[in-house]
């Protein structure tokens, strides 16, 4: 078996081509999600139960760190009133979605790749195909849809815990009034910020879901390759989240 790495540019292009075909097939098969609602609900449940605590922790620490860092740099100018602004905007627009995206890329990404990869190695995928069942319809679409549906609420929960964490630091360490913190934290948010903050997780999760399933379906040969593919899946999903995050931020600043 040849090593499943991006060992040449041609190999990389082949992966891009195959992944694009998978994306097309996912989109074509989206309507089948109703038929496979049982699988989809199961995946949603798994993501919800396994990633909720992770999302809350990620959000909480992002908010706390953001408040400490920005607090110390504005404190010397006596501008601690600005902390709530920074925390609120920073979490909703950037840190909430990005931190959640990275956590989901590892948690859900590794799960999808190893599950589907193991099914590939034990010929379960071939068994489905042999009976005329499309694995994209049965395995991939439910996972992608579940990720997209669950990830936005998870991000909003992470945002909320993040701002609450920031609040504790801001009111206790920098002695900002609690009511002032909340009124500015909420008032500073414009439609644009909430829009970006909710749109990002939808795109992140779509790509994380699709990439992790792609690497699972592409597992060939031995269990060593399964391990390698799980690593590739997590790394490439994480990098994709960061790139998409940059593209979003750039494009939104340009057009809105």
């Amino acid at each position: 078996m040849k090593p499943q790495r991006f060992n040449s540019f041609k190999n990389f292009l082949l992966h891009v081509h195959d992944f694009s075909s998978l994306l097309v097939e996912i989109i074509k098969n989206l309507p089948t999600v109703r038929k496979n609602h049982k699988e989809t609900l199961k995946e949603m449940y798994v993501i919800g139960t396994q990633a909720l605590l992770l999302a809350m922790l990620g959000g909480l620490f992002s908010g706390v760190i953001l408040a400490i860092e920005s607090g110390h740099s504005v404190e010397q100018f006596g501008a601690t009133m600005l902390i709530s602004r920074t925390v609120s905007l920073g979490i909703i627009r950037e840190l909430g979605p990005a931190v959640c995206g990275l956590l989901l890329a590892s948690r859900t990404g590794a799960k999808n790749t190893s599950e589907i990869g193991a099914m590939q190695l034990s010929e379960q995928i071939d068994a489905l195909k042999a009976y005329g069942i499309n694995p994209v319809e049965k395995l991939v679409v439910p996972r992608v849809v579940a990720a997209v549906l669950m990830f936005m609420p998870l991000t909003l929960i992470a945002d909320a815990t993040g701002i609450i964490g920031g609040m504790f630091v801001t009111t206790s360490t920098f002695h900002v009034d609690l009511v002032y913190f909340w009124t500015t934290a909420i008032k500073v948010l414009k439609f644009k910020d909430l829009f970006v903050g909710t749109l990002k997780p939808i795109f992140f999760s779509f790509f994380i879901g699709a990439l992790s399933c792609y690497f699972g379906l592409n597992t060939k040969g031995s269990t060593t390759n399964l391990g390698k593919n799980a690593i590739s899946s997590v790394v490439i999903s994480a990098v994709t989240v960061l790139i998409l995050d940059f593209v979003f931020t750039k494009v939104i600043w340009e057009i809105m």
Partner: protein
Amino acid sequence: MIELKNVTLTIDNREILKNVSLSINKGTSTVILGPSGAGKSTILKAILGLIEINSGEVLINGANIFSLKNDELLRIRRKIAMVFQANALFDSLNVEDNVAYFLAYNSKLTSKQIKDRVDEVLSFVNLEGTQDLFPDQLSGGMKKRLAIARALATDPEIILFDEPTTGLDPINSKAVLDLINRLKAAGTTSVIVTHILNDAISIGDVLTVINDGQIVASGSVKEMLQSKNKFVKDFFYEIFQDITLIQTT
């Protein structure tokens, strides 16, 4: 009823199948025999249409599966079942749901009818009472029999077996071979891929010997034993040894 005509398959500039022609008649059991890496599993995958061949034809009941429309291909595929080498059991489902999986898919059967059919095939393979167990709670031999039960559930005309006894102890191997013989008696067409000579001789009506992607010889057990072909002779040497042993003792 299954016919391969000059099938050629190349992957990454390597010829995996070279001009393979093969015909499998209704109600017979054909054994494809050869060393590992010869292309045996690939032939089964070509029959199922799981891989696209580069040239040649795969005909099932006279229809070329690579030129069929999707729904026609599906109809033909449903007549063929495969028992995979790694069993391909769904490990998140229990025994009953594994057997019911394809049976329940797009079918008009009631849940009572499905349950009855599941019980029937489970008892055929001597797995009564295991309905609620999960695949990882079963022994190797039981897993294989479960895989056979799942293949039987939809009442296929043709069953393809990929190395059905590889990795099993002699007792479990014999149980699997007995099952295959009982299926033949019931009129099922089987194609069995194996590298185990004894198994091939005990279940095959026709043996097809393959090496390095090429069919080397094909015929009855007797014809194979009389073959002058060097590779066939090498492959059957254990048998000749056994025969000599019996004659000299």
